[in-house]
């Protein structure tokens, strides 16, 4: 895995790339500290800051395009964070700039969208503050040049998602969901932290450059451990299988939050970590293999869950989980997969954000009704949302020539080369995706109207539909642009290296065709069940499989029985033990002393003759002692 050297002291826009983080951070600070006074223009400041960051990102991107391949990894020295251990700096290279573009681009669009979405919310200022905070933290995560910087961004993003999921704090369900998200993320961070410690103890540094240079030389066991720990962190953040329970609850937050954080950017942080630490994963092949397994497992689990959810946002969340499964699978395939993973990530960022915002505008229209069984026939009423949502739908199921087709097909293709079993599982996943996405599409926009009596949906205002249009344009052309001619792969080569032989795009391969066939079959089934047939208002009692899916594959139940209940039980015991045993011991000691002194007091009974008796005993003992000493 040969990458270009990191060039110190970058100038120009890249030199000023720390502005990308500073601007939104400044925005968040002003909005949070400003308080009531900033209510009026708060949201505009938020959008301005996000757009500012986007401009800096584009300028850096343009400056980078000007440089030739070998000079595209520029480092910006910031300040000495922890003397002797961590020098905080930024690494602007093709990988991080593509992420930065995605984050700031989609982020700004979502900022604009939420002006409309949150227009009636009294705490709008606080919402935009948190959004800015999130953008800043995410940019720090992707731009940092060392693992500690990444870790700070990592937890900062976790905090932002906690604040945003629990934005409507008065709703207890939102508060619990926020707490759950943060704690599950924290479990992931626990793994990442220990991974970073191991990197520090093995390599003596946490900066990417030095570590990746000597990554190969460390012994296999340690590298595998580091790989697995980083994977645990990635799973926590990207809601992969062991730690996926929080993603579906995170839908409690406002829709723009779900779009930005739980679809486009934050959940991809795990993929970024795996791709960025490519050098380590390549050196530890077992860890890499585990990544692919986790990817495929989550891919299937997400798909199955997606099929059973009636809540439109939860269905989309399920699909996000499975799409990230694809990205993890690609990231685990080594250099050949990185480009596809990032490509799929970017295109997914566009069409998933597009669909979430679409769902948001549908909810906005149906005054916050989320149950798809209460939708139906919205196509006629909300033309723009329906069309943009449709484009997103076509892109995600991999409809030929749309962006999903190129990226997902690329992943399946490269998976086939590495390990056919994974490949075919990925193909099955694509089929199921076809089914549940079509189900969502048909239940929402086609079929008979199942609206609630007081619902009279109308098209959302322009400020919400414009971002939808832009995102849908992106989700149409972006895939082709990135994949054809391996443009993204060559662009990312200096950052993540490239495979020996470039995998050209050949549509008519066996896996490609079977995927299309399966997708078509899935769509047909969905049309039969939900498009044409009468959709019951109340969810029918499904078979074992549907209840299994409805209960998120019992993920939550498993967590509760394995961790939460024993945890509460352990806490009660610990509190009891602390009060009784440790405290009891101390108080017991005190009571003991009190008791004995109480009894000793009774000896003083006031009778002179008792005292005389003890004197005589004393005398006798003295004489005895003298005798004893005498005879020694």
């Amino acid at each position, binding site marked *: 895995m040969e990458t270009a*050297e990191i060039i110190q002291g970058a100038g120009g826009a890249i030199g000023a790339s720390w502005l990308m983080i500073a601007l939104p951070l400044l925005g968040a600070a002003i909005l949070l500290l400003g308080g009531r006074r900033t209510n009026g223009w708060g949201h505009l400041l938020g959008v301005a800051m996000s757009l500012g960051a986007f401009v800096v990102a584009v300028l850096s991107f343009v400056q980078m395009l000007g440089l030739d391949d070998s000079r595209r990894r520029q480092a910006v020295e910031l300040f000495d964070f*922890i003397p002797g251990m961590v020098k905080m700096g930024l690494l602007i290279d093709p990988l991080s700039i593509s992420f930065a573009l995605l984050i700031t681009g989609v982020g700004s669009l979502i900022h604009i969208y939420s002006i409309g979405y949150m227009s009636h919310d009294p705490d709008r200022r606080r919402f935009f503050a948190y959004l800015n905070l999130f953008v800043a933290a995410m940019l720090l995560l992707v731009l940092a040049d060392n693992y500690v910087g990444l870790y700070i961004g990592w937890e900062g993003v976790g905090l932002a998602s906690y604040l945003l999921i629990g934005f409507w*704090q008065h709703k207890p369900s939102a508060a619990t969901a926020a707490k759950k998200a943060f704690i599950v993320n*924290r479990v992931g961070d626990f793994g990442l932290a*220990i991974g970073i410690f191991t990197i520090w*103890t093995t390599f003596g540094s946490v900066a990417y450059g030095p570590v990746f240079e000597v990554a190969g030389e*460390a*012994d296999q066991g340690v590298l595998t451990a580091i790989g697995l720990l980083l994977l645990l962190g990635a799973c926590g953040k990207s809601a992969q299988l062991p730690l996926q329970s929080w993603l579906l609850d995170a839908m409690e937050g406002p829709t723009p939050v779900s779009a930005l954080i739980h679809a486009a950017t934050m959940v991809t942080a795990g993929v970024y970590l795996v791709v960025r630490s490519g050098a380590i994963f390549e050196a530890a092949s077992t860890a890499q293999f585990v990544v692919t397994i986790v990817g495929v497992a989550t891919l299937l689990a997400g798909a199955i869950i997606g099929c059973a959810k009636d809540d439109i946002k939860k269905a989309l969340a399920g699909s996000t989980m499975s799409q990230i499964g694809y990205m993890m699978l690609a990231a685990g395939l080594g250099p050949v997969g990185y480009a596809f993973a990032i490509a799929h990530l970017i295109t997914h960022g566009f069409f998933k954000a597009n669909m979430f915002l679409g769902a948001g505008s549908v909810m906005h229209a149906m005054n916050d009704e989320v149950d798809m069984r209460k939708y139906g026939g919205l196509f006629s009423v909300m033309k723009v949302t329906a069309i943009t949502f449709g484009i997103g739908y076509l892109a995600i199921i991999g409809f030929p020539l749309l962006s999903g087709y190129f990226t997902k097909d690329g992943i399946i293709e490269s998976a086939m080369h590495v390990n056919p079993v994974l490949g075919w599982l990925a193909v099955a996943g694509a089929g199921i995706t076809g089914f549940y996405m079509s189900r969502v599409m048909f239940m929402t926009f086609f079929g008979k109207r199942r609206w609630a009596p007081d619902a009279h949906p109308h098209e959302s205002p322009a400020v919400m539909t414009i971002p939808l249009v832009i995102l849908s344009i992106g989700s149409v052309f972006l895939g082709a642009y990135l994949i054809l001619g391996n443009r993204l792969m060559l662009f990312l080569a200096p950052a993540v290296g490239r495979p020996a032989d470039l995998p050209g795009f050949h549509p008519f391969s066996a896996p490609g065709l079977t995927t299309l066939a399966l997708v078509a079959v899935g769509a047909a089934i969905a049309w039969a069940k939900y498009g044409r047939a009468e959709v019951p208002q109340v969810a029918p009692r499904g078979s074992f499989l549907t209840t299994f899916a409805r209960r998120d594959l019992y993920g939550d139940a498993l967590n509760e029985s394995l961790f939460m209940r024993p945890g509460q039980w352990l806490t009660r015991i*610990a509190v009891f033990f602390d009060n009784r045993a*440790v405290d009891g011991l101390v108080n017991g000691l005190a009571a003991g002393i009190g008791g004995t002194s109480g009894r000793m007091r009774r000896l003083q009974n006031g009778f002179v003759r008792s005292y005389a008796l003890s004197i005589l005993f004393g005398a006798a003992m003295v004489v005895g002692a003298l005798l004893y000493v005498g005879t020694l």
Partner: protein
Amino acid sequence: MPWLSILIAVPVLGSVGVALLPKGADKLAKQLTLAVSLIVLGLTIAMAVQFSPGSTDRFQFAETYRWIPSFGVHFGVGVDGIALVLIALSAVLVPIVVLASWHDADAPTAKRSVKAYFSLLLLLEAMMVGVFAATDVFLFYVFFEAMLIPMYFMIGSYGGAQRSYAAVKFLLYSLFGGLLMLVAVIALYVIADKGTFMFPELIGAITDPATQKWLFLGFFIAFAIKAPLWPFHTWLPDAAAQAPAGAAVLLVGVLDKVGTYGMLRFCLELFPDASKFFTPLVLVLSVVGIVYGAIVAIGQTDMKRLIAYTSISHFGFIAMGVFAMTANAASGATLYMVNHGFSTGALFLIAGFLIYRRGSHHIQDYGGVQKVAPVLAGTFLVAGLSGLALPGLSTFVSEFMVLIGTYERYVVPAIIATSGVVLAAIYILWMYQRVANGPTAEKVQGMRDLDSREKWVIVPLLALIVALGFFPKPILDVINPAVDKTLANVSVTEFKPAVPAVAEPKGAGE
């Protein structure tokens, strides 16, 4: 310019001055106390500015006056990096506490006069500065014990319902430790027979391992009780829960730090071999303390007790850092002492505000404070986040350094301790959710938000926490040389990475 003697004398004079004020002049007493504590803060800053981290001699601003010549006891004061930072902590905390407990003392429950509370506060500050500045072991011991008295009275006559029980328990616990230490101090003096109690001379004076172990135990148990390590911790929740918020801040924020400071300064340097011998035991105790403290904290219903248990967990981290004996761990532990002072101080003060408004300690009596008093809930959240060591806040830097330092030598304790990070998230967020989120409880409806005084109390603390979170370098530059000197005396094998990566990336800058 005898900085340290002035720093000790000014609060004492202030305390006497406040005590001598006429009976009714409560307001004047508070203002005078605030003024004196601000003067002390100013002096500390002036001293800190002149402190040169890189200087070769061990203790700067050192002064030694003969106190009891026959025993070789000196009034020896001097400051190195570690002591300076802790003195600065107390100098910063005291004015904030004075401001915060403006109305604490004149609440109906308090029998004693307001004047007495504030003069005790200043007396306590004098002793805090003294204990950290003492370079004479005997003087350190005197301050170590003298500190208990003002704190005892502050808890005893101004605290909550079972204040006398808590105060007596606190006093007896610390006295028990103190007496053990007294025996060790005397034995140290006699065995070393250098004819002096001055710390620099006593370093490495005890060579025979057996006596080292006994003396180490004498010192260590006293410090383990003071900074509550696991088995000796039950006095802290009671004392902290019953003490008025201001006193609780000083108790947990500074008084308990004397224990960990003592371990770092006296246990490690005077008895290096014994410290190494006992390190596994201490690591086990601290790791148990971390996990146990966190779990019991989750189960608490009383707000202040919960915060007290969290600080037991944090003390586990500090003790682990001290006894991991690596440069990173020790400087992380020292930084942790400072950060913990700010973050738990902020938590206690905010809990104090909540209790002052609502009147009940129990968490379930609250709910939905965020709707009614957003600023209060916001500061509570930030303080809580600093409690669970969120990166970007100061406690993360120290916790990260402690963990990575411990990981360098002892992998398993570090991993178990890192699980404390997850538990921390649980107890803080669960408490925050029960207090601030959800529908507003009817009793909480009328709760008013922070007034300007309270803002003046909390904002500096949170500003410090955020500032140190983003840019801890100035403090670390002061601590690191002092820690290196300390560890040099402990002669510990330096940490070497397995595959040393070249620190500076090669690429030539433009």
